[in-house]
């Protein structure tokens, strides 16, 4: 790729980026969210057309904006969010789109033989006749890779492939990648996790603000340098506070006992947890194992089928307004789709949770002056940039949108402090500056006496913030133990479903 430039309006997403990839190597593409990684790969794959620049694959120019040509030239892409049809078999998924519409009979037998051959050659073991719906996330990712290989990919692009995997599954993916590279595959590995980049790649290309800021052989650099390149300054995240003592569970602020809930695809089974005032309990787990449902139940959005939730010893009622009134600060996983109403003005989103309370309305009439004054205070206190009261909330960047949501729940309109915080993936997709801000605010709220439930796929985040950690798998929550008592391997095993694999027990166990 030579001199790729792409603008969106005034924003230059890619500014004169050149990238060379050789057969038999893994090139890591590193950068913050919004650095231009996804745009660059979308141009390679023909989803976008570059304003300037050319692409050559194996010496032949690739016509811009033509996904089929990219496929034909041997470029395969594995997206972070899988593009598989759940109700079809592995074989069907792999064959999808490879046969012309005019064909009356499908060549299933031949395809099956070829798929087996490809699977064997790459060491990707998956039953071709299994339904995708029955596969684990790791297996689905293998299917995605097989799909690309089946189509003859010689350049493989992996977009944040480890985001959905357990540490063990990630290791197995890396083993596969190493084998493929030995066979001459060229791999572009997109990530913002420095450990993985150091582990798997031969060369690193760092993007920031749409430009290439550094290119280096992985062996010649280190994590600290990569992080500096990535953020452009030497701020690294907050440090873990050592040796925090907690006797919090003696009198729990939030207490959940015997909780069952039905979420359609996942069920919560007999979930129990206690969080004390001034404590952060981290829930680790591969996403989709019931953490979302637990957050929804605690947020008052879903109803449990059994069990009790108590705050300071008093049962928590079912609906959102009463949950909010009891002092639960709720930070949802998907800030765009659930956290804010993007088309409404910023001040209305800030006031949304409290609009029906006497602080902000009387007899059904919004107390506009009071509401806007409150909104102005929050915007200032939480440093929400690019915001005016009347501006559409959609116009905010992800980080500022998250600051808005945090402000709404932490600095409440009625002036009370939150008693319980339910934060689900609070820093997903944010840049380091915003991540630090969110982490700082969560710690501050904890120090002010809130019981914090932190649910995250990101083990680094959990280990950084949590006082105790429990792991969720298949809708069951394992015992909570002091953060120092866990090793990465134990967390990984627990995430894979072996919740009782922890050898040392009774360290502050909650259930």
């Amino acid at each position, binding site marked *: 790729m030579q001199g790729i430039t792409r603008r969106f309006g005034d924003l230059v997403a890619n500014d004169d980026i050149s990238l060379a990839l050789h057969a038999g190597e893994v090139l890591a593409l590193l950068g913050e969210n919004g650095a231009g990684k996804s745009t660059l790969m979308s141009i390679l794959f023909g989803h976008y057309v570059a304003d300037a620049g050319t692409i050559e694959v194996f010496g032949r120019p690739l016509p811009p904006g033509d996904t089929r040509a990219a496929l034909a030239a041997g470029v395969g892409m594995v997206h972070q969010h899988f593009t598989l049809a759940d109700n079809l078999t592995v074989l069907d998924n792999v064959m999808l789109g490879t046969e012309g519409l005019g064909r009356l009979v499908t060549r299933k037998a031949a395809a099956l033989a070829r798929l087996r051959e490809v699977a064997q050659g790459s060491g990707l073991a998956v039953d071709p006749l299994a339904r995708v719906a029955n596969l684990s996330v790791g297996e689905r990712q293998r299917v995605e890779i097989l799909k690309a290989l089946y189509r003859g990919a010689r350049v493989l692009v992996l977009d944040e492939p480890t985001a959905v995997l357990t540490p063990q599954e990630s290791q197995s993916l890396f083993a596969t990648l190493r084998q493929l590279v030995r066979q001459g595959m060229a791999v572009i590995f997109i990530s913002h996790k420095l450990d993985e980049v150091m582990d798997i790649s031969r060369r690193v290309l760092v993007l920031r603000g749409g430009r290439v800021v550094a290119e280096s052989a992985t062996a010649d650099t280190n994590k600290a340098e990569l992080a500096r390149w990535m953020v452009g300054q030497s701020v690294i995240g907050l440090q873990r506070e050592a040796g925090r003592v907690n006797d919090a569970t003696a009198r729990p602020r939030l207490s959940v006992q015997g909780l069952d809930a039905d979420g359609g695809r996942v069920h919560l089974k007999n979930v129990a947890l206690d969080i004390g005032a001034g404590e952060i309990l981290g829930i680790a787990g591969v996403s989709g194992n019931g953490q979302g449902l637990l957050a929804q139940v605690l947020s008052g*959005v879903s109803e449990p089928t059994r069990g009790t939730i108590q705050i300071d010893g008093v049962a928590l009622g079912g609906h*959102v307004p009463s949950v909010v009134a009891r002092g639960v600060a709720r930070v949802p996983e998907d800030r765009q789709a659930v956290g804010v109403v993007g088309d409404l003005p910023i001040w209305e989103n800030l006031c949304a949770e409290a609009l029906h309370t006497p602080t902000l309305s009387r007899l059904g009439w919004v107390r506009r002056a009071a509401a806007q004054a409150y909104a102005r205070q929050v915007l200032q206190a939480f440093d929400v940039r690019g915001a005016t009261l009347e501006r559409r909330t959609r116009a905010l960047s992800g980080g500022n949108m998250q600051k808005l949501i945090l402000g709404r729940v932490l600095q409440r309109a009625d002036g009370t402090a939150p008693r319980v915080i339910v934060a689900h993936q609070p820093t997903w997709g944010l840049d380091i500056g915003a991540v630090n801000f969110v982490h700082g605010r969560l710690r501050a709220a904890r120090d002010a006496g809130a019981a914090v439930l932190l649910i995250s796929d990101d083990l680094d985040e959990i280990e950084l913030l949590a006082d105790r950690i429990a792991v969720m798998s298949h809708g069951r929550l394992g015992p909570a133990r002091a953060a120092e008592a866990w090793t990465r391997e134990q967390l990984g095993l627990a995430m894979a479903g072996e919740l009782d694999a922890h050898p040392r027990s009774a360290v502050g166990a909650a259930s």
Partner: protein
Amino acid sequence: MRLEARAHITSADVLRAGGLALLAVMATAAALVAAAGAPVAQTFSLMASGAFGSVFALSETFTRAIPLMLTGLAATVAFKARLFNIGAEGQLYAGAIAAVAVGGGAIDAPAPLLFALMLLAAALAGACLLLGPALMKLLWGVDEVVSTLLLNFIVLLGVGALLDGPMKDATAMGWPQSVALLGDLELSKLVAQTRVHTGLLWSTGAAVALWVLLRFTTLGFDIRALGANSRAAAFAGVPVTRTMVMVALLSGGLAGLAGAIEVAGRTSYVTLDMSPGYGYTGIVIAMLAALHPLAVVGASVLVAGVLVGADSMSRSIGVPSYLADVVVASALLAVLTASMLTRYRLRFDRVGRT
């Protein structure tokens, strides 16, 4: 070819899009007039003067705008909450029937009280008619577009049966029409010697009231939040079921009122042809007004002007008045296209051979 979101939208862009939409409508209409063999410029000027050129023309336009304003508001409040009420036509007839049932002489009460009862009955009739589809949507996920649309035909058949049966006016020499409203209940004329009546004040008042409701009340916030992003609204604590029911009552009630106001202001009794599709045209008006209650007032006067002007032009030079339908329909398409193109940019890419 693909659509791409524009980063910035200036008010100049919006104006330009509106102007282009207007040009597109004029061009379509001009082509049809020319095809009909009539002089284009004269046809347009006859339409304009027939709609707005004299006191009489204006009075006819405003008379026509009254029910359109109310059905336009009915569509506006429903669409704001993403409750796609296509049933305003049936709700209008239900309201008209309820108005005559209360105000046709069956109840003996002082006129002001009876008038209030009549409006209430009409609004309730329309509201109940939409409540069913709204509840079916909430409870079982039944598509309200289908249920409200089909209810229109059921209501029309039901009204037909009533007009030929229990509510038939025995003195109407066999015509299927209802008994007439009591004279005391009829709306007075705004301008002497014309048909325009005080229903114009009622409908404009309804537009202002709806604007205030949507902008300044908690229910208004609930409605807008629910329509813009129902998941986020529910997460923030908007009572989804209650809000949806309120929207159904408001929307159906406004359409029912349109029926009562038509009877009290213009027709005096119910016939099966009292509405030439006001309920459906209300949807067009709501879209033209971009779901803004105050803009509905202007949009309904404009659409009424096109309809009235085309009738008048047709009487003068014989171009079919169906031209009005073409103008209204192409205006809707042009405005929707224009609003899309202000938000997105069409990009033509060189697409390689496949």
